[in-house]
């Protein structure tokens, strides 16, 4: 049976096929999926904020830390860094009270991820970001297919 791993806000998990990685209620948060199709190894992070903040514990709730930690974990599971591709989901803008669509936390999360991925030389193969809608994400490590569900 395929194991389904549910990732909560602020968490990051990696796994080897067969497994399904899923997370629910992605708003301004950003889901970063890294995947090596040949090794069938992948990881999913549900990060809240773009960059680690001084004085706060460095954890996967920050986009940059989540990516930095996921890459070596995937390589330990047998992924080849040159084959890893990224998918980005989320980074929406839910309330007008928190800035606008261009400078809100969602947009900053997307920018931070792209910047960090560039540093690791990881290309973005798919993106479902922005807007004003919440998303559920389900990523199958066997097929490499990522399902994004909205409820509105």
């Amino acid at each position, binding site marked *: 049976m395929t194991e389904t791993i549910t990732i*909560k*806000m*602020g*968490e990051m998990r990696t796994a080897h096929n067969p497994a399904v990685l899923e997370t*629910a*209620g*992605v*708003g*301004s*948060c950003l889901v970063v999926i890294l995947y090596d199709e040949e090794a069938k190894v992948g990881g999913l992070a549900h990060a*809240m*904020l773009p960059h680690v*903040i001084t004085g*706060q*514990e460095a954890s996967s*709730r920050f986009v940059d830390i989540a990516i930095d930690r996921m890459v070596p974990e995937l390589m330990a599971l047998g992924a080849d860094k040159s084959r890893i591709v990224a998918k980005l989901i989320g980074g*929406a*803008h*839910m*309330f*007008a*009270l*928190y800035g606008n669509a261009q400078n*809100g*936390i*969602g947009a900053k999360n997307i920018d931070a991820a792209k910047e960090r991925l560039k540093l690791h030389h990881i290309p973005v193969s798919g993106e479902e970001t922005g807007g*004003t*809608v*919440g*998303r*559920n994400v389900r990523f199958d490590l066997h097929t490499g297919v990522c399902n994004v569900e909205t*409820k*509105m």
Partner: protein
Amino acid sequence: MNKDLSAFSRDSLKEVMNIGAGNAATALSQMTGTPVDITTPRLELLKVEDVTEFTGKPDTIMSVVLVKVLGDAPGVMMMMFPKESALKIAHLLMRQSHTMLDEMDRTALREVGNVLAGCCLTALSNFLKLNMIQSVPNTATDMVGALLSNVLADLGQANQEVLISEVHFHIPTLDINGGLFFIFDPKSTEKILKATEQYLPQ
């Protein structure tokens, strides 16, 4: 601030939330013309990323009216309704009925939020002698986890922990349910506690 609140601080804070929610419930009762029941507050000091679990399953659809609290003790006040309850409230006020929330309904909900937040914050502000100002209300209907993440990310920029409290309310005659949430950062919590020490009998 201590990670765990003392039993006394917890009781004081619950009393404060009760005063706010009681006033909001009275206002809601007058607006709808029916009695409104409220529960005693639930109160928790949580890591920012754990807050969504406090409010239930992250993919439940909710209508949220969000008001930022500004002034001496900044925080967030949220009214959260299941979609059906949000529709009922809007239609009660707009005196019409359909199955989707349209722009007029959202305006009605925002207005409800505005009035309730006003009652609540005026009561708190008078009781605690703290200056509390409300922002304009925002509404959104979506998965609660997604809506909250935006609020939490904003608070999470400066804090790892927040104080969250919930008062659940129910209008029996109309079968309307909802929750009134307050989220305060540790600094504001401390300010509120200090004020309660002065004004609540020990």
